[in-house]
């Protein structure tokens, strides 16, 4: 008996894990920013090692080239500003749904279908009615198309819990093939794009003599409005509650189904408008590449900014800077354009990874003697 007790009292040296992970309370803003900055710096270091290996030239030189690629002269600055704002508006568009934890991976398709509707209106009605009516019809068509593309998955999600990530993903390809179909009908030469010569009416007026700046202004307004909507309106509040817990939302009497559908309608509409801005406001052309993967990049932009529309200005600036900069590096050092995707990927991995250190805390095993006693 006593032996047994002694055995219990003196167990074999217990195994303790190397570290234990616990959830952190919210870190102060400064620390959060510092951790993210450290991640970006680490990523940039790794990127420069890789570029060094690939190109064999001084990393500083490469970052200089990147900078000049993005901000080298006024044309480039305007172009960067435009790319930034387009990415921004798509990120802002998907944010309401994301805050609701509705994983909309279909922004690509929603933007494309908005662009496609714009192009169809431009092609069929262009020249027959005054331009300002045309633009109104274009806007209406693009918004409606975006709403349809957004509400369809939301409807099934709300009523039957159909997996929205997969549904919206599939809708992208339906939209892409519809665009391909339109290209084949509208353009008999068999090229992959219907350009400004065919879509010659319904262009947005120019601002400061460039096509891009009006888009930038419109997008800035949209961003601020969405920020206010999410932060100060009753709808915005309902979205956060549904995102935190659907059951809580039901208890306090929020109609969850209605919120899901309404929010996705808004999300889809904004994506459609993004398509309108790209086609009607800047490129005046449509192809399967009109959205150009921005629908997917926007998800990362929105997530990086922790779903805060104003912070998205910075996260989309980061991504656009990388894309434009690495594009320039590719040209100058005679590399492949896809190099920028690799760099973007690496930086994203680091930023995604560093969130762990913001949300969780590691407690390392103490190497003191007390463990042995």
């Amino acid at each position, binding site marked *: 008996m006593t032996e047994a007790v002694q055995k219990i009292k003196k167990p074999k040296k217990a195994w303790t894990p190397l570290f234990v992970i616990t959830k952190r309370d919210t870190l102060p803003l400064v620390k959060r920013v510092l951790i993210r900055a450290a991640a970006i710096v680490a990523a940039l270091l790794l990127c420069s090692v890789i570029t060094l290996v690939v190109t064999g030239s001084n990393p500083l030189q490469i970052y200089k080239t990147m900078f000049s690629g993005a901000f080298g002269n006024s044309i480039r600055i305007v172009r960067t500003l435009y790319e930034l704002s387009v990415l921004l508006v798509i990120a802002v568009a998907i944010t309401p749904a994301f805050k609701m934890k509705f*994983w909309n991976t279909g922004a690509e398709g929603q933007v494309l279908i908005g662009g496609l509707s714009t192009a169809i209106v431009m092609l069929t009605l262009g020249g027959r009615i005054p331009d300002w009516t045309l633009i109104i019809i274009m806007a209406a068509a693009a918004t409606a198309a975006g709403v349809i593309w957004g509400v369809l998955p939301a409807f099934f999600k709300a009523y039957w819990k159909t997996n929205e990530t997969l549904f919206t993903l599939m809708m992208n390809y339906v939209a892409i093939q519809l665009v391909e179909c339109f290209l084949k009908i509208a353009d008999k030469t068999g090229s992959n794009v219907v350009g400004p010569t065919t879509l010659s009416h319904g262009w947005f007026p120019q601002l400061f003599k460039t096509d891009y700046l009006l888009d930038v202004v419109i997008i800035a307004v949209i961003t601020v409005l969405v920020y206010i909507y999410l932060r100060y309106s009753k709808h915005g509040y309902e979205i956060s509650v549904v995102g935190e817990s659907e059951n809580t939302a039901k208890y306090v009497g929020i109609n969850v189904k209605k919120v899901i559908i309404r929010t996705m309608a808004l999300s889809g509409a904004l994506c459609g408008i993004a398509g309108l801005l790209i086609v009607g406001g800047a490129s005046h052309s449509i192809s399967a590449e009109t959205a150009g993967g921005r629908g997917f990049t926007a998800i990362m932009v929105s997530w990086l900014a922790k779903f805060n529309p104003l912070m998205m200005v910075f996260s989309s600036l980061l991504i656009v800077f990388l894309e434009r900069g690495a594009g320039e590096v590719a040209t100058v050092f005679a590399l492949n354009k896809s190099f920028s*995707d690799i760099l973007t*990927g690496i930086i994203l*991995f680091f930023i995604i990874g560093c969130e762990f250190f913001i949300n969780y805390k590691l407690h390392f095993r103490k190497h003191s003697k007390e463990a042995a006693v």
Partner: protein
Amino acid sequence: MNAVLYSISQFIALSVVQGTPLLFGSTGEILTEKSGNLNLGIPGIMYIGAISGIVGGFFYQRTGYIIPMLAIIIPLVCSLIGSLLASLIYCFLTVTLRANQNVTGLALTTFGVGFGNFFGGSLIKLTNSDTPNLTLPYIARPYKAHIPLFEGTWFGELFFSYGFLVYVSIALAIIVTIVLKKTRVGLHLRAVGESPATADAAGINVTKYKYLATCIGGMIAGLGGLYYVMDYSNGIWSNNAFGDRGWLAIALVIFAVWRPSIGIAGSYLFGGLYILYNYMTVSMQLQPIMQMLPYVVTIIVLITVSLRKKRENLPPASLGLSYFREER
């Protein structure tokens, strides 16, 4: 009669060839999703699998000595290593660091497609070729070798006209089905995907299962990329040629309601839908509509499955969520 039979079996054979990359991809993704990881990085991993195989084959072909056995093994091993490393990135971020799976997956796809096109483009530049592609005929030959049985008959066309990877893909799909359905490991894996907290309480190492399923799944999917470049396109790499097949593979997962055995038939059906327009008298304009069919069919399946709510057809309950023991 025989001629009709022959052309039908030819069509089926083409569908099989078209569907095999999808089958690899979907089998891998099913295995991954059964552990609760929604790996949207599969398209990227397939690119990485393809280019790693190409890189291995390229340098082997450069040596000048080609032994068919090595010509198969070197690209195969390179491809497996490439997709394993890519899956490890995903695992580390989502399982160990508990990052958002959608974001990580999409970042991995961006990275993987860029990786493929960058190294593909660089190799093309290395060869100083005039055309924007890279050809590895000697490496591809053993991959394309088929069993010389019943040649020229419909039977041979239907069953023996493929490279060995086609049979590998079917075998893998069957093995994964059996493992998931009939073995203890499969039961544990499904438990991890349905409710990691319960699995954890039952003493199952959730992290280990998630890692293993995602890495093996990624390697299987990577083989789809290898099959595509080596067999389907005769050892020719050109940038972006792989296209959106990775997403189609993810669509197939839903179509197969998370069962690799259904995935076999599904992938050939998708393959058939992909090439159907060649056989029908549709105008050029409607071709894209035909190519849209697999996606529309997938959406319809997704909706039907959720409407009927049969428990065994639903996605794994914890799909897309990270697991943290202390958070219940």
